């Protein structure tokens, strides 16, 4: 799948701009990514530095080499670059480890988080370091161990509950809705629930319907709950730390296909804001709102769009509940066109809520109807071709932007 190749090839560093609101990631695609571009029907892209004749430049086409503007101040060689490189699951672990080190009340609960190191290795090594009680291997009883996490959060601990797959947390819905979300309110503010519920979700690679669920749409109505979705190693670590430090119950959505993304992240400690969205690519023509894995489909489509002369602004909303209406609103006020690209199902998904929020708040700034690309309302099929057609692909994104900008 084109997106998987994209995921595997994203080995380039992204150095964030140190402003407190906006983080710009720059993706420098390696030369071999042109094969992905070819698959997507985009033009061949070559590095600007090698433009010396032949190929596209001879044909007089002006090539834009990067979908995202590269920071001019990028260091010359990888060795002298600040920070350290790691994969997304390692970034999550690093964030978790730092928080556990910093605060002894932070603990982990879940299936196979301890000795096994987590089904996606997010907690690998932590049980050896912190012991079996702080990294607790639970029996297979999601509702009860999530409730146990809530009870311990009420009594002074800060548990991080892992759903081995987010879909399994459907079994914990009783506890997440009634106790996690509501208990602070029904107790009149007497008990806080500083719990983090995290795990991998989303459509993977032929995992079948039950392992391919998007629970963000089911949880979004629960009052008292915050939801964030990470998409890069940088924001994964930052959001993990922020979620653990938050006094509110936070659900952190990870994606099964993004765990092996590699990125260079700062050595210094950083914590991101749970409520803020991330500016991925500033632009002028259209606002594309997305999150999690679809960010990469959008960026792949953006390459194509850029070469077709469009200038999309891409925002990773990151905070699924609540929405960052400031970042989103500023963008809409600039571009007047909105495309939402999400992996949720069409019915009742995050896109549906986002569309509604935009209409409520920014109706006057819109020049066109809000387009929302979501997954089909089908149980995710096993067959690869069918699965591809279930989720939004870059070609659809390109077509949608072209339609919006007519």
């Amino acid at each position: 799948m084109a997106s998987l190749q994209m995921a595997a090839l994203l080995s380039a560093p992204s150095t964030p701009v140190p402003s407190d609101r906006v983080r710009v990631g720059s993706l420098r695609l390696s030369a071999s990514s042109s094969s992905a571009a070819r698959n997507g029907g985009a033009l061949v892209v070559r590095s600007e530095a090698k433009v010396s004749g032949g190929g596209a430049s001879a044909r007089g086409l002006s090539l834009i080499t990067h979908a995202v503007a590269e920071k001019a101040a990028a260091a010359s060689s990888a060795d002298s670059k600040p920070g350290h490189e790691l994969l997304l699951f390692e970034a999550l672990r690093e964030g978790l480890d730092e928080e556990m080190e910093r605060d002894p009340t932070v603990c982990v609960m879940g299936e196979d988080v301890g000795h096994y190191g987590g089904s996606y290795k997010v907690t690998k090594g932590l049980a050896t370091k912190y012991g079996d009680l702080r990294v607790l291997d639970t029996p297979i009883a999601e509702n009860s161990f999530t409730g146990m996490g809530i009870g311990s959060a009420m009594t002074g601990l800060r548990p991080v509950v892992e759903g081995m797959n987010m879909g399994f947390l459907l079994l914990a819905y009783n506890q997440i809705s009634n106790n996690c979300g509501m208990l602070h309110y029904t107790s009149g503010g007497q008990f806080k629930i500083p719990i983090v519920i995290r795990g991998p979700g989303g459509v993977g690679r032929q995992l079948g319907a039950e392992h391919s669920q998007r629970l963000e749409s089911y949880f979004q109505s629960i009052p008292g709950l915050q939801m964030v979705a990470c998409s890069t190693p940088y924001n994964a670590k930052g959001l993990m730390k922020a979620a653990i430090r938050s006094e509110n119950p936070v659900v952190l959505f990870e994606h099964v296909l993004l765990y092996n993304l590699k990125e260079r992240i700062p050595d210094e400690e950083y914590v991101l804001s749970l409520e803020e969205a991330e500016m991925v690519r500033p632009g002028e023509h259209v606002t594309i709102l997305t999150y999690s894995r679809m960010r990469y489909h959008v960026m792949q489509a953006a390459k194509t769009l850029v070469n077709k002369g469009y200038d999309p602004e891409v925002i990773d909303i990151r905070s699924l509940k609540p929405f960052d209406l400031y970042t989103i609103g500023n963008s809409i006020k600039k571009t007047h066109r909105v495309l939402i690209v999400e992996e949720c199902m069409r019915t009742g998904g995050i896109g549906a809520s986002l569309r509604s929020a935009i209409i409520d708040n920014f109706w006057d700034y819109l020049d066109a109807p809000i387009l929302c690309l979501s997954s089909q309302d089908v149980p995710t099929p096993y067959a690869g071709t069918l699965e591809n057609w279930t989720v939004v692909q870059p070609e659809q994104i390109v077509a949608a932007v072209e339609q919006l900008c007519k």
Partner: protein
Amino acid sequence: MAAFSAVKIPPPQFTTVRSSSQRPGSSPAHFAHSPSAFNSISFGSAKSVRSRPLFAVSSDVVSSDKTKPASSSASNPAVTREVALELYEDMVLGRAFEDMCAQMYYRGKMFGFVHLYNGQEAVSTGFIKLLNQSDKVVSTYRDHVHALSKGVPSREVMAELFGKATGCCRGQGGSMHMFSAAHNVLGGFAFIGEGIPVATGAAFSAKYHHEVLKQSKPEGLDVTLAFFGDGTCNNGQFFECLNMAQLWKLPIIFVVENNLWAIGMSHLRATSDPEIWKKGPAFGMPGVHVDGMDVLKVREVAQEAIARARRGEGPTLVECETYRFRGHSLADPDELRKPDEKAHYAARDPIIALKKYIIEHGLASESELKSIDKKIDDVVEDAVEFADSSPLPPRTQLLENVFADPKGFGIGPDGKYRCEDPLFTQGTAQV
């Protein structure tokens, strides 16, 4: 005599409460079992499944034959005068409070679903009066008396029931959600079973504080009591938590208030094996059956279970045979329970039984007990007056406790956090 040592075990008698050949005045389901099942009762943890003894006893069930003297001799009361009066007062408070709730409900002062505890006072008093302030209580929707026994002031509970801002949960919880951080009452839950994992978490927290944070107390681990009913014992969360609590030897006591009825569903019609105490040994923990209409027997069992938990020996499952004198809730017409069953248990009223015990053992005089009754009446009256005169929650309270950190409402279009918007604090903003 320790509660868990072998006591006289009556022969098995399985007369069901409801049957077509109902004999008038038949005794209720009598959860005894074959005496041969446990000749040896020891308290080590069971190592192998094969040789694990059944950790279960049945304490003396008060027979309907009232001519039989109490098990302890008149010269050796099981409790001191102070304790006896404390227990009496607590049970009378529970009863008077609940009776007042019924009155207030029918007068339109409280609404919704109200589940009264009349008849079950011995369980609440028997257990909770042994706890320290830092021990935790987790209950169900039938939680008023648990809160009162744990020390939540009657005023706060009554005001909560009236939906006033001075209620223990600011009027936001209601009858089924009594919480008190000061007295470590962790709820009050409307769905049955959903409090049990929360209680398990509180017990986990106690163990964590001791082992990881090294915050140990001289008296031992903080104990958590989880109260729930017979209907809950068929729910998955019950079994899942029995497993986890025993697995990690958590300081929790699972207290089953078996009043034989889950609204209109008889326990015997809902449960394949109605002897709930047996489910403890199935998970490796002691299972005890006790007469829940006798506060002294409950207290005896509770003492042992709490001591076990404090020492870190793990959980206990205690099945208290009890009965609710009123319907499931104030909306329940209570048509299915037979009059003779009700009469049987009314004759075993725990308050009357304790009163009789106190007088027979010369622990206090009739007039002293009456003055306690009067004192409690005043307390309850005062609670009603307080609740009546308390203000209703203002609009500004609507959005206040949704998040512990109100930044969770997010960032508004103007770049400020929504919670900074004055409309928010006025409660008139749309979330």
